[in-house]
């Protein structure tokens, strides 16, 4: 009797199996190199929320997050080697360096562990990469401006932190966009270091030497500072592309209510950690997943502003958490 019930339930489980019965005994670890800013904090919170639910639902057995204390590659390499010892089936990693962890990652791959890197990706070929196409992100700003102001005009470019590859990539995308749309010109360029106060100082410094600015292209974390600099100089506010920070969205909302100001905002959601989690789960499930995947941008437009502002915590970044379906979509798109 018991046996028939067992067999029947086993058959049922097979029929109902949506693919995640296979990973219910798998353990996934998050190796994170840094937790010192609002983006990383939101990233860890999203991870805890989504993977906590996944563990409760029995999709995976465990999904533990580890953060190194000092943001150093050698420390993270040791952390990854510890994870191998702890017997995790997959390691999701936001890397301190694209290359310096390769040795440890190779050790993990050799031990049969799935390694999925995201945001801070690694170039060891055995690992998967959930990467951000920063160039496309820069170019999308020009695509928006092209439709918002077909006549073109002078642009002010606010760059990020000099020497970081993200800064080069976004800027390259912006410049490619300008080349395609010759009625736009970049009148000036400053480094805002992705921080509102730095951006405000930098923009205030360059403004007196500039002609009338039609729009400001940015990298995120600098839009609010730019707006303040324009207001302080008594110059008309151009279209400033925002970067999904709460203070930027709040300022945009105030302007929108006061004078119908329009712009758009684009950045990467910290919840990308959950996308990497689901990708790892899909690989563990035996799905055929390409090694290079691209993260979708989180774009906020005039009509989605209110909804996003409401869910963004004070001082935080607009966020979205990904589901298993989202991951499957991203995987399909990459094939």
């Amino acid at each position, binding site marked *: 009797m018991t046996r028939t019930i067992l067999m029947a339930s086993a058959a049922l489980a097979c029929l109902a199996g949506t693919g995640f019965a296979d990973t219910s005994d798998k353990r996934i670890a998050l190796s994170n190199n840094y937790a010192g800013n609002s983006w990383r904090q939101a990233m860890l919170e999203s991870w805890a929320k989504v993977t906590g639910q996944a563990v409760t639902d029995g999709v995976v057995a465990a999904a533990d997050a580890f953060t190194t204390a000092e943001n150093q590659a*050698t420390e993270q390499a040791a952390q990854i080697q510890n994870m191998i010892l702890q017997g995790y089936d997959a390691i999701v990693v936001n890397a301190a360096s694209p290359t310096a962890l390769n040795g440890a990652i190779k050790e993990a791959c050799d031990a049969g562990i799935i390694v999925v890197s995201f945001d801070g990706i690694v170039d060891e070929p055995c690992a998967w990469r959930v990467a951000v196409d920063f160039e496309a992100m820069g170019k999308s700003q020009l695509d928006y401006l092209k439709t918002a102001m077909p006549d073109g005009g002078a642009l002010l470019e606010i760059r990020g932190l000099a020497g970081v590859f993200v800064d080069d990539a976004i800027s390259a995308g912006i410049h490619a966009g300008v080349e395609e749309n010759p009625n736009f010109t970049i009148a000036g360029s400053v480094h805002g270091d992705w921080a509102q106060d730095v951006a405000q100082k930098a923009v205030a410094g360059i403004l007196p030497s500039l002609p009338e600015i039609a729009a400001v292209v940015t990298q995120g974390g600098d839009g609010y500072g730019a707006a303040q600099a324009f207001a302080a100089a008594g110059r008309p506010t151009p279209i400033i592309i925002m970067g999904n920070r709460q203070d930027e969205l709040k300022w945009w909302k105030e302007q929108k209510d006061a004078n119908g100001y329009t712009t758009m905002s684009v950045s990467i959601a910290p919840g990308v950690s959950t996308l990497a989690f689901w990708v790892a789960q899909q690989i563990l499930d035996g799905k055929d997943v390409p090694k290079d995947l691209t993260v979708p941008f989180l774009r906020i437009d005039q009509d989605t502003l209110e909804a996003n502002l409401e869910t963004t915590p004070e001082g935080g970044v607009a966020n979205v958490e990904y589901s298993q379906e989202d991951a499957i979509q991203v995987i399909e798109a990459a094939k």
Partner: protein
Amino acid sequence: MTPDRLRLLVPVMALVALLAGVFWMQPRAASYTGLNLLLNLAVPIALATIAQMLIMAVNDLDLSMGAFVSFVACVTATFLNDTPALGLLILAAAIAVYAGLGVIIHLRNLPSIVVTLGMSFVWTGLAVLILPAPGGSSPEWLRTLMTVKPPLAPMAIFASVLIAIVAHLIVMRSTLGVRIRALGGNERTVARSGTSIIATRAAAYALAAFFAVLAGMALVGLATSADANIALRYTLLSIAGVILGGGEFIGGRVSPIGAVIGALTLTLAGSFLSFLRISPDWQIGAQGAILILVLALRLLFNRLEARR
């Protein structure tokens, strides 16, 4: 028991205790591969610790150790890989610069902390110039050497023992080693004995640079590529390793075997805390607590020694 043996007792006890703790929490670690994963990153740290120990032996302190090892790593992953002759030349030149630093510190009577802190910016700058973005790749022979799987015990154990023996022979048994330690202990005596103090200090610095070069190369062999900031932690780790291993800030009192054990202990402490699942916010503090605990034990032993 001789005082030297007694000094070695505390670091050995700390290492054994930590190892037991790690094995108890993670039985998987008590295997060939487990031990290698646990300890292979300690090999470059042990080499850097020996380098720091040589500097500390002449009563100085090197705050540029991490930056220098990073610089070496960048040279190894680029020049030494592409044009080995040029790479070796650059590394030899770097060792010569270290010897020069020893001379300058001595002649101008400068505090070593200030000079090496200044040099740390020079090394980091050079590393960024060589490798503006992380990359490069490890020479094939180096990678093979660092991932070799010898019989009986993993590479990390063999390497640690070898480093300890070689450093012990150089520092405790050779004439140069005796002079270096004597220089840290009592400069005037060395001068009166007719030995050149400048040459001894320069030799100590050059020898330290040589071990630091080995540290950078070992690190690249493990990591497979480099990054201008790859070893910044090594400055403090190497100092802590020397102190943990029974060395002292007052020159002359150093222990090469202890230094290697200190480096292994520090590496294990990190893994131990990670297995304990202590939140990262507390990990640095917990690592500090382990250091204080070991030092407190040593103080206790010193008192007992003095009372006898």
